[in-house]
């Protein structure tokens, strides 16, 4: 067996910068794909963390149309505490907890920041903590009767992540809408931008500050069993239609399961991925054309070499494989550089994402992906080399020797 790989490797080593520039297309294509996939899986994991998919049994009920609608754009009839009680009585539902989220001013160390405060219904705090998987990093959880006290999300504690320029520890006092509250606990990092930046207080305290009465921002519903998710959703919708007197299709409320929310985000991510894959394919195609070009030039430059090899006994297939393998190796090198840079970019992207969202996604190296990227780049290179390699193989020895 002729050692085509050694020969091709040696030829490639002597290649000028011009040849390597043609690899730019392959390199960019593979870099994009690898970075995208590394980042994409990280992004999905991060988004999943945002939605707290760990608690997949939780359904969120909100008034209004889309959960992300611009506030104030529609006059909505808010949900009430009584709605929550009614939902809780449904057979498919375990518990239904009304929650209020209000935006307000948070002050500490003489610095004022805007943020969100959420309510905890007294007497049900244990259920809430269990439902939302809440535990303290420092201090203790809020209990019934802890009026005038708050818990803070993880990001509000650290000097680096809070806007106050100073660490907040349990026992310190903060101002919420000019009212003084004592911090009793700091929550564990949740990996969610919203949950890690929020102030928790008793419902009675929050009601005093914002005066919402029986109105409820959202109702968090825990379903009895994971399999009952769809049934519970239907039950709640039916119940609320009746209570709010609306017809099917005209709902002024939304019952969203975590999967549904995720699907929406994921479909956007998928669309972005498809777009980037198209760009990557174009750049790989450009790279392939570049390789065809260099290999064609290379065949002309090495005509005399081809002639010599034919004189000393090289069959056409030998010549063909010399150029074919060399072309494939070129693609492979482009792919290798692409994989290294792409992985680095993916990792950098994820750490940027983590610091931005406060998530804790760890990127992983996908060996299967790398294998197929390498194989693919070799195949692209080799395929691009087929025509030049055939031209090389078909050279007439006498003419080729003339150079």
């Amino acid at each position, binding site marked *: *067996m*002729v*050692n085509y790989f050694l*020969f091709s490797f*040696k*030829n490639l*080593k*002597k290649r000028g910068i011009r040849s390597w520039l043609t690899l730019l297309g392959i390199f960019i294509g593979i870099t994009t794909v690898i970075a995208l996939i590394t980042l994409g899986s990280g992004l999905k994991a991060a988004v999943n963390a945002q939605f707290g998919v760990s608690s997949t049994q939780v359904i969120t009920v909100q008034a209004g149309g889309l959960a992300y609608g611009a506030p104030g754009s529609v006059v909505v009839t808010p949900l009430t505490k009584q709605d929550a009680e009614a939902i809780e009585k449904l057979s498919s539902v375990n518990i239904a907890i009304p929650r209020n989220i209000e935006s307000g001013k948070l002050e500490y160390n003489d610095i004022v920041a805007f943020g969100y405060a959420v309510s905890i219904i007294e007497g049900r705090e244990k259920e809430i903590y269990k439902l939302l998987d809440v535990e303290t990093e420092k201090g203790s959880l809020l209990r019934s009767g802890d009026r005038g006290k708050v818990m803070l999300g993880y990001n509000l504690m650290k000097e680096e992540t809070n806007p106050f320029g100073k660490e907040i520890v349990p026992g310190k006092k903060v101002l919420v809408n000019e009212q003084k509250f004592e911090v009793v606990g700091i929550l564990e990092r949740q990996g969610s931008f919203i949950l890690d930046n929020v102030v928790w207080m008793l419902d009675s305290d929050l009601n005093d500050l914002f005066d919402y009465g029986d109105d409820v921002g959202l109702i968090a519903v825990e379903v009895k069993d994971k399999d009952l998710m769809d049934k519970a959703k239907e039950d709640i919708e039916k119940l609320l239609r009746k209570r709010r007197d609306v017809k099917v299709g005209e709902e002024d409320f939304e019952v969203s399961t975590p999967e549904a929310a995720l699907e929406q985000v994921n479909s956007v991510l998928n669309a972005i991925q498809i777009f980037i894959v198209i760009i990557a394919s174009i750049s790989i195609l450009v790279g392939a054309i570049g390789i065809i070009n260099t290999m064609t030039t290379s065949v002309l430059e090495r005509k*005399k*070499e081809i*002639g*010599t*090899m*034919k*004189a*000393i*006994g*090289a*069959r*056409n*297939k*030998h010549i063909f494989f010399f150029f074919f393998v060399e072309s494939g190796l070129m693609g492979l090198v482009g792919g290798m550089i692409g994989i290294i840079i792409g992985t680095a970019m993916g990792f950098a992207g994820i750490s940027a994402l983590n610091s931005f969202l406060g998530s804790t996604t760890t990127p992983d190296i996908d060996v299967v992906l790398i294998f197929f990227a390498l194989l693919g780049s070799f195949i692209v290179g080799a395929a691009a080399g087929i025509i030049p390699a055939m031209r090389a193989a078909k050279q007439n*020895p*006498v003419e080729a*020797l003339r150079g």
Partner: protein
Amino acid sequence: MKKEDKHKSEVINLNAVKKYYYMGDNVVKAVDGINLRVKKGDFIAVMGPSGSGKSTVMNLIGNLDVPTHGDIYLGGENTSYFSESDLAELRGKRVGFIFQQFNLIPNLTVKENVMLPMDFQGVSKQEREEIARELLSKVGLGDRIDFYPNQLSGGQQQRVAIARSLANDPDVILADEPTGNLDTKTGEKVISFLKALNKEGKTVIIVTHDLYVAKHAKVIYWLKDGKVEKKTRKRK
């Protein structure tokens, strides 16, 4: 059997060989009917000025080119009906080429260059290495086997080419102006190598326009206008 015996001693036989090039209505007769019989152990020079058809003859002898008329026998086999690729294998086995410009593969080491003809014949790696080492020390380059061609002088490169031409132990060494790119002294050294090979029993054919080189041969074919003008034999 009788026929085979006859061909055994006959390394190359050009039988009424013509090479015509047709250019529109013009016919260029590069080689116009040549008979050339080379026996084992011969030392032949093909002499002639440029345009005499010398290069074409050399290509035909080496089976790099196919004639338009006539037959060429290489080691007793009529090569007229061989495909280009099969011809490659045959010449790789039976003919060792030496070129004016050495024609070493620049990106391969000296040893790899000598191994290359054996690669094409499917010789095992171990054997290739062994033979390459042996041949290179024979031409006095045993200490340069891992050098690249551009690290060697012209004379040394031509010695590598001689080693390469011997790789598959061919019937005939075909040298095209082997001293053309060398100074007189180095050229003489190359010629003396070829003479030594001939003494060992190898058939050597030199194509040249240099009488000084041709004089070393036992037989000289003088070409003119694609024909053998005369054939001179060296006196013992």
